[in-house]
């Protein structure tokens, strides 16, 4: 134990930290090193992206509907888990599509659910046309967080179908296996990064009461602990082991998507397999019956609220702010309800809101970027890094 460690340990004792003996020692191999600081300044914000998560109170829509002589297989409403569940959901829905032995399949929508559905259908042997009103880079998907968050608010507890847990686990596990092929590829379309949760107070301290909510706070369907075997656990870090100027820290490792590389890869694969993209907007479900393809996978995301009149879709606004990329930063962190993650195309920050009360943005379909919110989030990180030690651990 060096002098610095002793000093930190004694300071920790003064501020009432739990006794060191209660925290398992972190083995040498797990200790963080060379953590570069994030240059958190508002003038480094180069983009603000805003989107609506397609939360569906009844859980993702995966049923099959017949419109005239056309089979429509729904694939939407994955809430904040679209990126994570996309391959598993696509696999399930393409299996349904292939039951008709179609030579041609149409996919409606080109977000991450539509694109993976199209690729899965191609891999199953079909010729695929995507009909979309927006190219991939302009879809709501690319305005999302893009992290492995498969359990992000799947349904309301009161409206979830009885088998949702099993369906979700299947989607999650198939997605995980499919994502495996992209890990380690040039450009890192998918990457793992350590994520630090930092706090000024103990993690089990009671949260302050949330502000009164204008609408009932949603009670989400509990998925339970189903994927513990593929989920890294949280490690408690004592202050001597990390450079962050906070008394409480814990760490896990998270998987995330780099939009530019991953999107480019999927679209290239789609075209390489003979895929066709048609820019088009549909105005009523009946129009689908007039497409030449008689098997259609419907992936409209939140747009189902309006064009399919799906009243179980509830908008859930989310905003991400993007700072100039810092490839030397290879981690993410959460502090005072702001999350930061260094991605290939920028350091992403999000005000995730309080952990209790009405989830931030729930019920809001306001998709206009809020510069003030972005600056508030960046300033939380700026304050944290202003206290960052000159010589990190």
């Amino acid at each position, binding site marked *: 134990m060096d002098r610095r460690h002793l000093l930190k340990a004694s300071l920790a004792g003064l501020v009432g930290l739990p006794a060191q003996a209660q925290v398992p020692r972190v083995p040498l191999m797990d200790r963080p090193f060379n953590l570069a600081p994030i240059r958190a300044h508002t003038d480094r914000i180069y983009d603000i992206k805003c989107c609506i998560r397609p939360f569906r109170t009844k859980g993702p829509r995966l049923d099959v509907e017949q419109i005239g002589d056309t089979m429509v297989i729904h694939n939407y409403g994955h809430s904040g888990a679209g990126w994570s569940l996309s391959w598993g959901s696509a696999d399930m829905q393409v299996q349904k599509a292939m039951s008709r032995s179609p030579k041609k399949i149409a996919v409606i929508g080109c977000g991450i659910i539509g694109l993976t559905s199209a690729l899965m259908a191609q891999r199953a042997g079909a010729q695929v046309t995507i009909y979309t009103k927006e190219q991939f880079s302009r879809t709501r998907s690319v305005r999302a967080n893009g992290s492995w968050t498969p359990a992000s608010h799947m349904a309301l507890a009161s409206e979830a179908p009885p088998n949702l847990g099993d369906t979700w686990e299947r989607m999650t596990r198939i997605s995980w296996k499919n994502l495996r092929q992209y890990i380690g590829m040039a450009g890192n379309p998918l990457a793992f990064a350590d994520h630090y949760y930092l706090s000024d107070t103990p993690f089990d301290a009671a949260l302050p009461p949330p502000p009164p909510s204008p609408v009932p706070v949603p009670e989400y369907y509990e998925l339970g602990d189903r994927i513990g075997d593929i989920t890294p656990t949280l490690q408690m870090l004592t202050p001597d082991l990390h450079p962050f100027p906070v008394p409480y820290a814990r760490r896990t490792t998270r998987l995330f998507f780099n939009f530019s590389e991953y999107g480019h890869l999927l679209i290239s694969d789609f075209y390489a397999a003979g895929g066709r993209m048609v*820019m088009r907007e549909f*105005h009523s479900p009946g129009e689908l019956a007039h497409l030449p393809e008689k098997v259609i996978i419907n992936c409209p995301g939140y747009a189902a*609220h309006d064009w399919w009149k799906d009243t179980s879709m509830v908008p859930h606004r989310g905003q991400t702010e993007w700072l100039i990329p810092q490839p030397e930063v290879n981690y993410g962190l959460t502090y005072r309800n702001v999350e930061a993650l260094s991605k290939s195309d920028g350091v992403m920050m999000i005000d995730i809101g309080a952990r209790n009360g009405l989830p931030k943005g729930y019920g809001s379909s306001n*998709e*206009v970027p809020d510069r003030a919110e972005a600056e508030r989030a960046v300033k939380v990180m700026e304050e944290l890094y202003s206290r960052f030690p000159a010589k990190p651990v």
Partner: protein
Amino acid sequence: MRLRNFLAIPVLVLTTGIAIAAPRISIWDGVYTDAQAERGHTLYMQSCSRCHGANLSGTFETPPLTGRFMPYWSGSTLDALFDYVSTAMPLDRPGALGAGANADILAFLLKSNEIPAGSKELSAGNLKSINFDSAKPARARK
């Protein structure tokens, strides 16, 4: 062209269950007035321009309401656009505007896309019989 031919009539039959005998007209037949479009312009600036822009050009994320607006909506009848605007817009408070206001906004959108005005105002009642044609149909040319 092919799209318009095979979409317009069958959709109408599907959605109503009966074939409608009323004479069909086109958006090119002067289906709104200049005064109505002017009212629509004011409403547009109040409720729509924040996202779609004062000149209707949209943003990277928000669709433009000129240019591709025409091919995206052509082939339908005007009630489809009216229904969408009435129920889905404004995005942050869908359905907040009344039928009269939405009809006025539609008139402004038509004018902004260089569809000629006429002498009769657009009303929510007869929109099903107005074809959204991307170009002036030959039969209407004189």
